[in-house]
């Protein structure tokens, strides 16, 4: 082969490569743009959905609270249903908004010092009536003498709330649900708190362990499913844990209950 021929071929290849590079960066830019658009869309739509819902719930409460005159018990129950449904929808919209912010890297941590026990207690109190309604046995076990956390309290409570909410939802009446806080194995960066939210519910097959942390993913996504959610709970929980430099994972198999674990590095307040 002549030298000239080889040069020709190289030049041709180079040109091709350059062209492909250009095409690739164009594609990457397009994808980024699409992700930003999706985030913006989710954020706008959740704002807009919230407004009429606010009106619905306020009118419901005006009726329920007897501000326009006392209702019968049955009427109160019915209006209570409207309010309950509205509030559930509002929570879901809130999750979508939170997710959209996370996807747009708009989430920051507001750290304060608090005990994990107080956050656990807050979340348990919020779920008290659900636990009672399903006749579940909820136990909390917190190791003695744990150091306080210097972390974002709202976000830690949000993580616990999402995990506990799932544990309650995916466990049959009469089952057990627990939260355990202890010292985790120290990492090279120092001490960590290990928090477990476990249940004796339906469990998750190992092949779905990655899937459940993905946004909008649900193991049973059929329309007839019992559980109604956005599929964002675990994606948000993982995001919040990672913002704290912790880890969130699951140990479970089908029919054997689930154990979700997360770690939060212990930092001291400045």
């Amino acid at each position, binding site marked *: 082969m002549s030298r000239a021929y080889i040069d020709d071929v190289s030049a041709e290849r180079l040109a091709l490569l350059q062209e492909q590079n250009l095409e690739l960066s164009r594609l990457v830019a397009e994808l980024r743009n699409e992700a930003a658009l999706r985030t913006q869309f989710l954020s706008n739509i959740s*704002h807009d959905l*919230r*407004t*009429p*819902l*606010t*009106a619905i*719930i*306020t*009118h419901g*409460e*005006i009726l329920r*609270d007897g*501000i*326009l005159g006392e209702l019968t018990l049955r009427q109160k129950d019915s209006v209570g249903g409207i309010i309950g449904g*509205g509030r559930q929808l*509002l929570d879901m919209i*809130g999750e979508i*908004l939170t997710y959209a912010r996370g996807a747009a890297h708009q989430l*920051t941590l*507001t750290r304060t010092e608090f005990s994990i026990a107080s956050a656990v207690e807050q979340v348990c109190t919020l779920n008290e009536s659900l636990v009672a309604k399903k006749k579940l046995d909820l136990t909390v076990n917190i190791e003695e003498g744990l150091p306080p956390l210097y972390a974002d309290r*709202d976000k830690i409570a949000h993580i616990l709330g999402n995990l506990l909410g799932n544990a309650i939802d995916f466990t049959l009446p009469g089952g057990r649900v627990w939260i355990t806080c202890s010292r985790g194995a120290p990492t090279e960066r120092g001490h960590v708190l290990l928090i477990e939210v476990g249940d004796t519910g339906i469990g998750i097959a190992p092949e779905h362990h990655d899937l459940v942390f993905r946004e909008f993913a649900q193991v049973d996504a059929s329309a007839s499913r019992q559980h109604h959610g956005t599929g964002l709970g675990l994606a948000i929980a993982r995001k919040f844990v990672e913002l704290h430099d912790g880890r969130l994972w699951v140990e479970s198999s089908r029919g054997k209950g689930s154990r979700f674990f997360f770690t939060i590095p212990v930092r001291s307040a400045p």
Partner: protein
Amino acid sequence: MLPHILLVEDNALVIDALTMLLEETGHRVSAATTLAQAQRVMSEESPDVVLLDLTLGGEDGLSLMPSVNATRGTRPIVVALTGHDDPETHARCIAAGCRTVLVKPIAAMKLKGQLAEWLGERAAF
């Protein structure tokens, strides 16, 4: 005379709902859907409490605060209304001079109770 509440909010459905709640619990209500309208009501009628939505179409509700803070005589108590109570928004509202931030939808009985408290303070002045 009934305590006067200025509701600054751009959504008609929300205005209707809150107006009903406030009127039925013994208040007089003026609604403003823009900052310009809100400013007019403030200068003409000096309301006792302003319930201020943070997003008014394209306007930032908090831009009303400088004129509130410049009010001669008794200033109205301003309460921010928002759909999403993140810590940054909260801090921004307090720094601007709002009394507190309420997340929509505000529970009817809670709003009634808080208003009674704030109006009581003002009456004690």
